């Protein structure tokens, strides 16, 4: 009897969750309909225009559509939201409300202001917008902003570590163990992946720093800005030694000396993992009522490439994957999980106590209804808790020398594209975006 009641309850919750998620533009829509439809829907549905992630998703789609100026405007809107958050009063009533809500009710009561790697990447991607508009100085400003933005994330992370230890202590006083990740948590194994563990930190990526060094060189600002370009390249190499494979030169032959040019190709591919709240429900009081541990989790990345090749008449390059958004997301989750777990245990205990009291007063059905109310209520709050889902999952950079007017061939998975280099320029920058199979776009500027 109790088991059949629980089954019915879980079905109700499942269908409620589906209904809650059907109203917003998600990566699912990008997969089920075409790129242009998704972009138009997202741009016209402004119901979430006070959310950080909304503007980032829109900016990415606009960039992938070649609308670089509007993409810059969308990124700027995201900055305004994040700047407001960073500039809040030391004792902010909103932050306190959000903290209490997420400690007692659900993780989804928090507003999402992005993780360190997302805050870094928004400036990097915006720098690409400026590059594609031939504004190298603007691109350099974004790269400096990228570096500056990390300061607040570090401060915020320190506060989170402090909060986590307080939550752990609270959970310990309630007699709960928060040292072990629940066995049925879907990302438990992924967080122990050697590639995740090998990342230096959760907010600096070699892609951004490599791009930063190239931008500083092209803009001619490297020397004036205290060798920022050289420092960026050193940082990129420290984060991933494979960065050295991103650069290739032609042999120094007098016949080609005056006929060669620099080519920089930047690939942005796929979609990063989408954030979700995973509920691990467990029965209490011999199955009469239930509670749940709700932890942040991620879907798998999608539409990504596994192989990128560049072919010229002189070189064959396989640029290294320098941006690994999925690993950055898992690394962040791994670092934050002790705090999240402790908070979640405190939440589950609070709900379990309330459900037990309902059960004591109104019988098993009362307890079950209380459990159901908590579950559906938190599912509703969690449904709006989203990250930058349309952020690229992978980024590749190659900077090499090629003969002017020669053809460059690019292979992305099974797709091949080619373009001819200009005859009278010092260099060219090519941006290739692969968001969905119906949206492979090549843009370029020369200097």
């Amino acid at each position, binding site marked *: 009897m109790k088991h059949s009641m629980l089954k019915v309850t879980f079905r109700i919750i499942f269908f409620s969750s589906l209904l809650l998620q059907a109203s917003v533009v998600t990566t699912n829509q990008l997969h089920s309909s075409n790129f242009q439809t998704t972009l138009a829907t997202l741009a016209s549905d402004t119901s979430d225009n006070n959310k950080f992630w909304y503007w980032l998703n829109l900016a990415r789609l606009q960039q992938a559509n070649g609308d670089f100026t509007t993409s810059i405007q969308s990124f700027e809107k995201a900055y305004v939201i994040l700047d407001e958050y960073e*500039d*809040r*009063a*030391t*004792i*902010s*009533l*909103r932050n306190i409300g959000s903290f209490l809500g997420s400690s007692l009710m659900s993780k989804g009561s928090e507003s999402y202001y992005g993780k360190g790697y997302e805050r870094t990447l928004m400036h990097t991607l915006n720098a690409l917008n400026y590059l594609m508009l031939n504004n190298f*100085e*603007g691109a*350099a*400003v974004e790269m*400096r*902003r990228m570096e*500056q933005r990390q*300061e*607040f994330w570090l401060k915020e992370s320190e506060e989170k570590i402090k909060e986590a230890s307080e939550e752990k202590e609270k959970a310990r006083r309630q007699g709960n163990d928060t040292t072990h990740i629940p066995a049925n948590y879907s990302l438990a194994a992924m967080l122990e992946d050697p590639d995740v563990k090998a990342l230096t930190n959760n907010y600096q990526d070699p892609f951004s720093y490599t791009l930063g060094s190239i931008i500083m060189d092209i803009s001619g*600002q490297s020397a*004036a*800005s205290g060798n920022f370009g050289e420092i960026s390249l050193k940082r990129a190499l420290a984060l991933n030694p494979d960065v050295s494979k991103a650069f290739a030169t032609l042999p120094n032959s007098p016949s080609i000396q005056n006929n060669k040019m620099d080519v920089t190709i930047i690939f942005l591919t796929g979609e990063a993992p989408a954030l979700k709240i995973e509920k691990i429900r467990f029965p209490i009081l011999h199955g009469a009522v239930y509670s749940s541990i709700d932890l942040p989790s991620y879907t798998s990345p999608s539409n990504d490439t596994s192989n990128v090749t560049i072919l010229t008449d002189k070189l064959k390059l396989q640029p290294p994957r320098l941006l690994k958004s999925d690993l950055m997301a898992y690394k962040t989750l791994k670092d934050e999980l002790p705090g999240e777990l402790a908070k979640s245990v405190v939440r589950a205990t609070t709900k379990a106590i309330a459900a037990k009291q309902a059960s004591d007063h109104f019988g098993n059905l009362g307890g079950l209804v209380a459990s159901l109310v908590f579950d559906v209520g938190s599912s509703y709050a969690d449904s709006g808790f989203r990250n930058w889902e349309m952020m690229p999952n992978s980024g590749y950079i190659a900077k090499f020398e090629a003969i002017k007017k020669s053809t460059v061939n690019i292979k992305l998975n099974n797709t091949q594209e080619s373009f001819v280099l200009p005859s009278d320029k010092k260099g060219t920058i090519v941006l290739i975006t692969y968001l969905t199979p119906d949206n492979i776009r090549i843009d370029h500027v020369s200097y």
Partner: protein
Amino acid sequence: MSLTKNTIITVGISTLLLAFLTGCSSKDVKYGDVKAVETVTADFGSTDLQSTAESLTQSLLESRYIAKAQQPPKVRLRAVNNLTYEHIDTKSITDKIRIKLLKSGQVRFLADVANLNQVKDERELTASATANKENKAMADSDYIITGNVRSIKKANDDVKDVYYNVSLELVNPQSGEIMWADEKEIRKVTSKSSVGW
């Protein structure tokens, strides 16, 4: 009497409603003092632009290479590099400096590098055998002016501090020698409230 009273009430309510609607729909537009100190945000703003142009132009005009020159030297303004964390239109700084210097009558300006091709095209339309000589004259500057805008940002829980440094240099393009240099420093501090929404 009753009609008059109703009319008064109707007119009164209509007036109030109209005043309310007018108040809601219209924006209060007024002219501001262009020299007034602007502190809307801590970003590089109009007051910074004006004070920078004022102080650096004055300093440049007082330098011996300009003040004691036999005849007004030919100067070309090159770009001022934006090395800050903001998208500052540095052209607005150079434009302001150019106008102030030109008004002084102590220097002559050559076209910007950005506009040089357009000027060349225009000249070539009417150019004759003397074109090359004229083009050379167009390219020969006695000095070039160049510079940088830098910023340093610092913040703690209570205060956000932004320091701007705008520097200009007068360079002899033949020798590469820096003949004059000066800077304008600006510091902006924003306080965070301890308790707030």
